[in-house]
């Protein structure tokens, strides 16, 4: 992007930052949001334990992991991408493409590890395509990734068409691998995909909050031009973050393939908005530069356990949708609500002061 009159920085000033906490240190804002999330999480867990007799069943933890683990894995690179002020809407399609690639190769007699390797490579290539278009050609990521969302899903359809792998007569996927969808880690109720997510979350958290790369991402998200002048390779960073996002989505595709022990091309359809919702609810600013991995982890925990509890209570999925939407709205309204109230009060005061005069 050129150094034109209106840069992203002024955009941020105008919308998000101008309100409440712009002048406050980042960590204090974040800390407060995370505190709120912890409170919400505790509230949800308490409420669910009281309301739903089966919520305290140990298997809930396992199911929670199975249902949310692979989505959460995509939320991590998405956090990085959003931190730098971009967005990747192609993650769910990449998940589908990678899974379809595994299925396609498996169907054609490949070794499972070779199939995984190719699927991950597809993730890297797809991510690189996003990266090139966004970082090198300067195209807006929201538009590019809507395009690749269609493209990747389309390629998955080309690969598998109407097939579900394994088809009748195919080999089954190796059972010791597909067991990750059925069995928890021995001696615990933690699913494998959740363990993977937790390990990754620690790594991503360290990178974001304690490493130069993380600092650089924050700077890029807040003010790309200034970051560039500080020697940060903005384009290169964005490129690699999209590659990372592609890779992790492909990995999530492998996870989901194993959990379901099968693949169709439409696996993970529509998950992109779920991933974005999780990241945003975790307190990551859509304008970039603000957010924590802890927030995203808490968000995963809240969204996942709410879904478990509501399904157990047989709350209709439409009402669950409403809950998801309301959570998102709360995530932006609460931090800004105080400021809005203050503005409203001032407005009323001014009105009142004007009227007699």
């Amino acid at each position, binding site marked *: 992007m050129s150094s034109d009159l209106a840069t992203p920085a002024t955009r941020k000033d105008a919308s998000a930052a101008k309100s409440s906490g712009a002048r406050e240190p980042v960590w204090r804002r974040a800390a407060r949001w995370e505190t709120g999330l912890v409170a919400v999480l505790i509230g949800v867990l308490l409420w669910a334990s009281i309301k739903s007799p089966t919520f305290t069943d140990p*298997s809930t933890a396992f199911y929670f992991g199975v249902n949310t683990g692979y989505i959460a894995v995509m939320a991590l690179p998405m956090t990085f991408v959003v931190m730098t002020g971009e967005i990747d809407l192609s993650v769910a399609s990449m998940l589908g493409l990678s899974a379809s690639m595994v299925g396609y190769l498996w169907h054609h007699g490949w070794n499972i590890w070779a199939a995984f390797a190719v699927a991950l490579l597809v993730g890297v290539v797809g991510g690189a395509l996003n990266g090139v278009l966004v970082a090198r050609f300067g195209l807006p990521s929201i538009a590019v990734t809507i395009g690749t969302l269609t493209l990747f899903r389309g390629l998955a359809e080309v690969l598998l068409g109407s097939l579900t792998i394994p088809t009748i007569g195919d080999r089954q996927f190796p059972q010791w691998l597909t067991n990750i969808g059925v069995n928890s880690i021995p001696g615990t109720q933690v699913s494998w995909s959740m363990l993977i997510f937790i390990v990754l979350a620690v790594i991503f958290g360290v990178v974001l909050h304690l490493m130069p790369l993380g600092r650089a991402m924050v700077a890029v998200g807040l003010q790309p031009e200034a970051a560039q002048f500080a020697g940060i390779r903005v384009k290169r960073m964005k490129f690699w973050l999209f590659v990372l996002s592609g890779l992790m989505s492909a990995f999530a595709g492998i996870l989901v393939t194993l959990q379901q022990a099968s693949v169709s091309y439409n696996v*993970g359809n529509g998950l992109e908005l779920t991933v974005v919702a999780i990241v945003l609810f975790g307190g990551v600013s859509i304008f970039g530069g603000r957010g924590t991995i802890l927030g995203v982890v808490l968000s995963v925990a809240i969204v996942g356990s709410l879904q478990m509890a509501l399904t157990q209570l047989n709350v209709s999925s439409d009402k669950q949708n409403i809950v998801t939407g309301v959570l998102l709205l709360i995530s932006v309204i609460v931090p800004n609500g105080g400021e809005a109230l203050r503005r409203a009060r001032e407005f009323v005061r001014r009105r009142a002061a004007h009227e007699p005069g």
Partner: protein
Amino acid sequence: GSTSNKNGGSSSNPAGGSAGSSSGGASGAVKQGLKVYFIPKDTQNPYEVLADKGGQKALSELGGSVTVSSGTTDTAAAQQPSIQAAIQAHADAIVIAANDPAALCPSLNTAARQGIQIVAFDSDIQCGSNPNHLFINQADTKTIGTSEVDLLAKQINSQGEIAILSAAASATNQNAWIKYMKEQLKKYPKMKLVSTVYGNDDPATSLTVLQGLLSAYPNLKGIISPTTVGISTAAQYLDTHKDVAKRVTLTGLGLPSEMRKYVTDGTVQSFELWNPSDLGYLAGYAAASLASGTPMQAGSTFQSGSLNKTYTMQQGDGELSVVLGPPTVFDKTNIDQFNF
């Protein structure tokens, strides 16, 4: 698939006998207070809603209860939590219309291992023997495929180019029917299937691909749309484009209530379906019966309440299934008698 086939085949006779002696084939043997989870493709699909209501009716007749649970999107992932909830609630049976033939197998297998009976309806699962399950077939899969081709053939004098307007490319039931349509078409050498297009059960997409189809194949004589959204969208198009309606004949699977207008005004001559409510009702009875100890194997029988029929499980298509009955063909003469 093949192992289960063999097992089922070899053990069918003695097991059938024992089933007969233990349960006596009477619905009176059904346990009270059964908990059955109905997991439709999504909670809003009107067709599935009718089926669920049928299931509810069945279980309330039998003194049990039905929980309907699913997502809002037609994905396997959205059905997963419902299966888990059923497991955790120690349900007696799960009746599922699977969004994916295989993706739910691991979860369903877990459920089966906890003693939950698995019944599939509308769209079958392909899990081999993990778990064993009973498929409530709306009509014999092969019959649906062949009869639709026959229906169309009758109307276009068995000749000309035809096409299929399906739902999503990955829809299991659609693909199963299409397979048999293709087989049946071999009997009509003058009818040529030129294309299969996918409208994703979205009316707008269906319209776009339909028009694309019509311009790609100007000599198209017939369209089979084995999906309710597809056939009604196509019917509306033909209804408003009489020039096209004159040369193109439409048939497939549709709901009488959606199609009545077009059959009455002659745009569509005939199409098929079964009563979705009966389908759910039968599934409910099957699930209750299995949960009450009827063994899941070929030859087992169970009563079906107001359907007034004793159904026998059969090993067909490599899967254990019962067939609701032949599909009803709707046309001008009978369409007013149906209100679903």
